[in-house]
């Protein structure tokens, strides 16, 4: 069957996860006080960012490494690096 949810979509992917996140929220206070819309939780295609009431949860393990959050965070509050060599998402097809 064709996928219906983001969870099903993410489940199709192969990831080789590093123990350390390659995505870092520079200042959690900025997400809490200066960013009412929490835009990264909407446009991130891997649903990496989840707002947990007071803090931004970063599920770096499901990151496609597209770079949208690096460019799209309205406060430039995300430090974005590549995962360690050979780690992160491993596309098998397209």
């Amino acid at each position, binding site marked *: 069957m*064709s*996928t219906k949810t983001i969870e099903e979509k993410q489940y*199709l*992917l192969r990831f080789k996860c590093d123990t350390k996140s390659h995505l870092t929220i520079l200042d959690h206070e900025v997400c809490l006080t200066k960013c009412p819309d929490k835009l990264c939780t909407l446009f991130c295609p891997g649903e990496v960012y989840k707002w947990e009431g007071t803090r931004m949860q970063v599920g770096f393990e499901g990151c496609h490494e597209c770079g949208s959050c690096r460019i799209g965070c309205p406060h430039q509050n995300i430090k974005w690096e*590549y995962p360690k*060599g050979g780690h992160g998402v491993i596309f098998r*097809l397209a």
Partner: protein
Amino acid sequence: MKSAMPEKFDVIVVGAGPAGTACAYTCAKNGLKVLQIERGEYPGSKNVMGGVLYRKQLEEIIPEFWKEAPLERPIVEQNFWLMDKNSVVKFGYKGLEWGEEPYNNFTVLRAKFDQWFAQKAVEQGSLLINETVVKECIVENGKVVGVRTDRPDGDVYADVVVLADGVNSLLAKQLGFRKELRPDEVALAVMEVINLPKEKINDRFNVNDNQGCTIEIFGDSTKGNLGTAFIYTNKDSINIGVGTTLSSMIKSKMKPYDLLDQLKNHPMVSPLLEGGESAEYLAHLIPEGGYNSVPKVVGNGVVVVGDAAQLVNAIHREGSNMAMASGRMAAEAIIKAKERNDFSEAGLSSYRDALYESFIIKDLQKYKDAAHTFEENPQYFQYYLPMLNKAMSEFFTVDGVPKKDKQKEMMKMLTGEKGKLNVIKDIYRAWKAVK
């Protein structure tokens, strides 16, 4: 790393996508000592493309590549759909001249294709190192002299470093060749590969085994935002995807995967996918800033190619071909520089000249205002496109109304809300943006 390798290379290529590999292949073929560094487990494992590969620019590097490359289907039919909620206006072209040698373009699955292409460079003598991130360029006395990788003792040196590190090109940014990208300079695209038996694809798209079909979809597929969707046929799967500028995605607060699901469920699309099995979901950025976003492409000991140089023509969905052509041009400049032993910015400048004299920069220049025009004037997608659907419905519906009255009615529909003068202005603005 150092001990296992020669001290210094002629060329280090960062990235094993189409641009980097075209450059590595051409350099190695001409006898240069090449190191190609890829951060993924294998070439293609980090790369995403809707799936159309043009023949011409790869043929210039590897003649008759179609006889051995892992391709899906040669494309014989290309379509545009202007889609509203429950309707679509279609136009396209099918030509059997595209179904035979030398072909026009092909659908490909990049993880397979990129591995094959990189292997061709290895066969020419290029050394490929996977699973290695280049953290920064090593700069000495204003000249790039090598790269620092994330391996222990991971510094490697070369006369020229080629930045083929993709749309995010952190290295071009490190060197100050470009500013940080803005959300309106990139498109965020998501896609799915959906497995479907070959016979079903052939029936639904009216093609034979060795014929492919593309559909580009405008309008309701992006909820009227600046962007497109696409459906491409592989051998026994379909690639379906959608993208808008990141700025539109942010402004409209859309989730990209919701947009994809809406597309898959659209009544004009869903019958094509019926019974399909999702195999992969992928997201990527496309550099769509065009001419005005092209960074500095040559420096002392360094050149920038492909997506890293923002070489994409979004209007004609060309990117990987421009990547390959730019990689080849960079290689030719490096070979010349090697003959004179001058790897300075001036010594490598023939790359910039070749690029700016080629179809690549000429095409980007032609469309330099297009994206901005359509982003700033949403009426094309949001007003005219649905209106065109209504007009076509009117035109084809036989209901006893005389044709002359129908024509009047259609014109009124088109100009009604806006007034004739505004319609003429809109047509002129669109024409100016793409002329």
